[in-house]
């Protein structure tokens, strides 16, 4: 039974999404509890799956019984299972948040809003588990299509941002598909494990190197790596407040995970360490991304855009971690990926509440909030500590392991880039806190009604998770080091 959990984890949100328009035809208010209960079940299942995988080793699931190179295979290894726990947890919290602040002008289409969120979750599950390059493409596109629709769901100025996101995202997907067809032309297979067996003899082929480059650009657009990041700030800042946490915390990180799978599991650690200098490429681009993202974040006035650029800068830190080519750096990178997903969700919950309750969008107006919500300010302090990387939070330990890995690889440029981006992150949070505390509360906002429990729940739970990831960093990094490392690293 436990062997079927990976398939179940995907089918549950998918079938819920498909059946929701029918089940909630008469009672549209059922859609929210239905979606939340699906995600709640997913948390339980993903925990069972993680413990099963840690005990019995990776699950290789063949759909409809067709064995791997011919059929479609799903691989639930410890890395995928770990990410999936984070994915279903964040999806659950983000859904609770989205329910309290769902876009007002949707009316009867609110059912479709939840359908899109569930489709997004199921597609992301598919990307995490996919053991087949083409399967990865299909799920990337399903996830992307639901995100385009979710960005534009409330209409207004978000429509144009969604359109730009769609144009760039589709270009990225086409380039990824082109890369996959190069790989297929060279090796004659699409299964990741099968291709990993065949590629070592094909590394001199220009088709492999070219295909890898196309895949990199394609996935680079999807994960908003710096030269290709132009779609992200517009899309995430104009998306409805209830949607941006789920997009910001999950979509780019899962695309990054897909890229990590391709370089370490398909090409293999041997090839990337010795034959193809792809780690150098992503190391340099990661260093650029983390510094440029933080500089751009510092120059923003709109808080949502500032956090969106902060996310871009952290994608760079994760890439620096995985590009060091040693175990410490890789574990640090994956651990930072988990942290960043939680922190991005928390930051966008925070700004969502600030917009809903006080109507504040710009840094300069933050002072108007006054001292009305100490729990909100308190959790913002924890988020800032996590983003900057101060000791009790997960952000510190992630950066710590990444820097240790970079020192092990004698890569001082990477260390410098991380330290510089840390300083810049400190700078933009100082800017936020300065406006928050120094500006007198001139306007006492009459709209400041009682905060819904769902808002408090989501912010407090994610801030607690930032601390818990920091306090529990030893077992989690140990788990990654012992179980989730790519073969041969």
């Amino acid at each position, binding site marked *: 039974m436990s062997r079927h959990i990976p398939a179940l984890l995907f089918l549950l949100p998918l079938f819920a999404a498909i059946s929701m328009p029918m089940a909630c035809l008469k009672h549209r208010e059922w859609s929210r509890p239905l979606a939340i209960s699906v995600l709640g079940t997913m948390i339980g299942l993903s925990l069972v799956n993680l413990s099963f995988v840690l005990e019995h080793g990776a699950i290789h699931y063949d759909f409809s019984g067709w064995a791997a190179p011919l059929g479609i295979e799903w691989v639930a290894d410890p890395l995928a299972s770990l990410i999936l726990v984070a994915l279903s947890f964040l999806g659950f919290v983000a859904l609770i948040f989205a329910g309290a602040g769902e876009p007002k002008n949707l009316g009867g289409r609110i059912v479709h809003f939840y359908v899109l969120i569930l489709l997004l979750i199921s597609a992301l599950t598919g990307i995490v588990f996919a053991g087949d390059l083409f399967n990865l*493409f299909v799920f990337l*596109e399903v996830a992307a*299509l639901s995100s385009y629709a979710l960005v534009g769901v409330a209409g207004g100025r978000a429509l144009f941002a969604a359109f730009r996101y769609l144009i760039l995202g589709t270009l990225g997907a086409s380039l990824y*598909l082109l890369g996959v067809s190069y790989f*297929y*032309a060279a090796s004659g297979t699409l299964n990741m494990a099968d291709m990993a067996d065949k590629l070592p003899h094909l590394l001199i082929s220009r088709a492999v190197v070219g295909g890898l480059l196309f895949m990199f650009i394609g996935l680079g657009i999807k994960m908003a790596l710096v030269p290709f990041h132009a779609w992200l700030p517009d899309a995430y800042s104009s998306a409805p407040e209830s949607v941006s946490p789920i997009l910001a915390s999950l979509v780019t990180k899962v695309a990054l995970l897909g890229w990590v799978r391709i370089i370490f599991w398909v090409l293999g650690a041997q090839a990337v360490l010795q034959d193809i200098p792809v780690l150098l490429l992503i190391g340099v681009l990661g260093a650029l991304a983390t510094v440029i993202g933080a500089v751009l974040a510092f120059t923003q006035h709109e808080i949502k855009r500032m956090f969106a650029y902060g996310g871009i800068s952290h994608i760079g830190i994760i890439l620096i971690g995985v590009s060091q080519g040693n175990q410490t750096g890789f574990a640090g990178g994956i651990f930072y990926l988990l942290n960043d997903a939680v922190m991005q969700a928390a930051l966008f919950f925070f700004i969502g509440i600030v917009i809903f309750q006080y109507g504040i969008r710009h840094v300069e107006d933050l002072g108007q909030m006054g001292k009305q919500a100490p729990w909100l300010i308190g959790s913002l302090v924890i988020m800032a500590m996590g983003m900057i990387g101060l000791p009790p939070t997960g952000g510190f330990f992630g950066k710590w392991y990444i820097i240790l890995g970079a020192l092990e690889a004698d890569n001082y440029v990477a260390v410098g880039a991380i330290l510089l981006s840390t300083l810049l992150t400190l700078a933009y949070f100082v800017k936020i806190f300065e406006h928050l505390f120094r500006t007198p509360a001139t306007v006492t906002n009459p709209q400041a009604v009682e905060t819904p429990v769902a808002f408090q729940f989501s912010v407090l739970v994610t801030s607690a998770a930032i601390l818990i990831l920091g306090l529990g960093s030893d077992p989690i990094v140990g788990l990654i080091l012992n179980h989730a490392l790519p073969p041969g690293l």
Partner: protein
Amino acid sequence: MVDVMSALFQRPNFLIFVIIFLWGLYIMVTRYNLVKKLVGMYLVQTSVIFFLVSISAKKGATVPILRSTTDTVNAIDYSNPLPHVLTLTAIVVGVATLGVALALCSAIYRTYGSLDEEDILKRLE
């Protein structure tokens, strides 16, 4: 140089793929009308599909269905079904993307009364 040229003209499918791909990319970058941008985007998607089909074409091969169970199977006689299946899926993905894109376009037109990127950007200011 001559080698490269002759290699190119021996594989006209690659040449056509590159031309369609770049053509689509050029339209996407240079046109201000959103629907024209979508035409460019669809050309890019189609060029990749064309590439997949063209690398799997095989002279004198037939559909991969066995006519009898007793004859020996020669793989040479059959064309590879996998790229064609991939192509079908890629076409479906492309159509879905285009559907979402056109829905966004019509919503943009209803909101801004224009499909010209510059007009919309001016209205957004």
